[in-house]
């Protein structure tokens, strides 16, 4: 078993109203960043886990996302490649 670190990005499902992202977008435009088109605010989660190899670790984190870390109705998730921790 080796120790791996895996980062997960969780974002609001595309097409769903994202009031938090809209509020941040509007604030950026108020600051003068007029070219900002869209902003989405999500979560960044780092999981450290023991696994036989990187692939096994990534599969486990994918399962974690489906069961708890992301809401299947409202959120999408992306998993980064596992790195040795």
């Amino acid at each position, binding site marked *: 078993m080796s120790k791996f670190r895996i980062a997960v990005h969780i974002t609001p499902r595309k097409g769903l109203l994202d*009031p938090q992202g809209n509020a941040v977008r509007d604030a950026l435009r108020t600051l003068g960043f007029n070219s900002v088109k869209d902003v989405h605010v999500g979560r960044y989660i780092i999981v450290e886990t023991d696994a036989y190899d990187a692939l096994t670790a990534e599969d486990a984190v994918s399962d974690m996302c489906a069961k708890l870390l992301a*809401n299947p*109705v409202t959120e999408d998730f992306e998993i980064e490649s596992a790195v040795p921790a």
Partner: protein
Amino acid sequence: MKFGIVTFPGSNCDYDAFQAVTDILGEEATYLWHKDHDLQGSDVIILPGGFSYGDYLRAGAIARFSPIMREVAAHAKAGGPVLGICNGFQIACEAGLLPGALMRNSHLQFVSAEVRVRVENSDTMFTNLYDRGEILRMPVAHGDGRYVAPPGVLEELEAEGRVVFRYADADGGINADANPNGSERNIAGIISEAGNVLGMMPHPERACSPLLGSNDGVRLLESILARVAA
């Protein structure tokens, strides 16, 4: 009849529910600790409002894994009544007892106010003492109350009469002004396919006495009594 009221770390409407059941309804109630595995013979389960586990990750996401929730899910599967109020609605959705999810209010602000809801279906075990189309006054207090579900699920809910309450104005109009959180189709409460799980953001247990500004919530509890005791 015995009501079991689940107390999670961070629940804050469990006492309100307890008092509504015992003082107003005149029935027996007991608190069920989230770490317990025993519903103590409860006929009806109430998942109360509050901020279980500090709303960490998502509202209700951690509470659904509390030990007691296994028994609550089994109770629901066997047809036992479950009433999820506010945070309890969020927990019921996270636990898969109800479809959809509750997201951050569209205006991003916590809303603590009295709202009106229209009774959309009076043929449920929770609403049989109301009239269809009746307007009820109840408080809401939440930051994550915007009900969302995939379009197909919304159509299914509508077709099966499972949208039980909708935010409305005083005349029963369903419009954006009457919607406190941006919920899709002004949905304030839904029931499960089998009809024994109700989730709603407004607080009927806090609308049980004229002293509190409204007693429109009493008949919801009495409806359960009428149906389950029958």
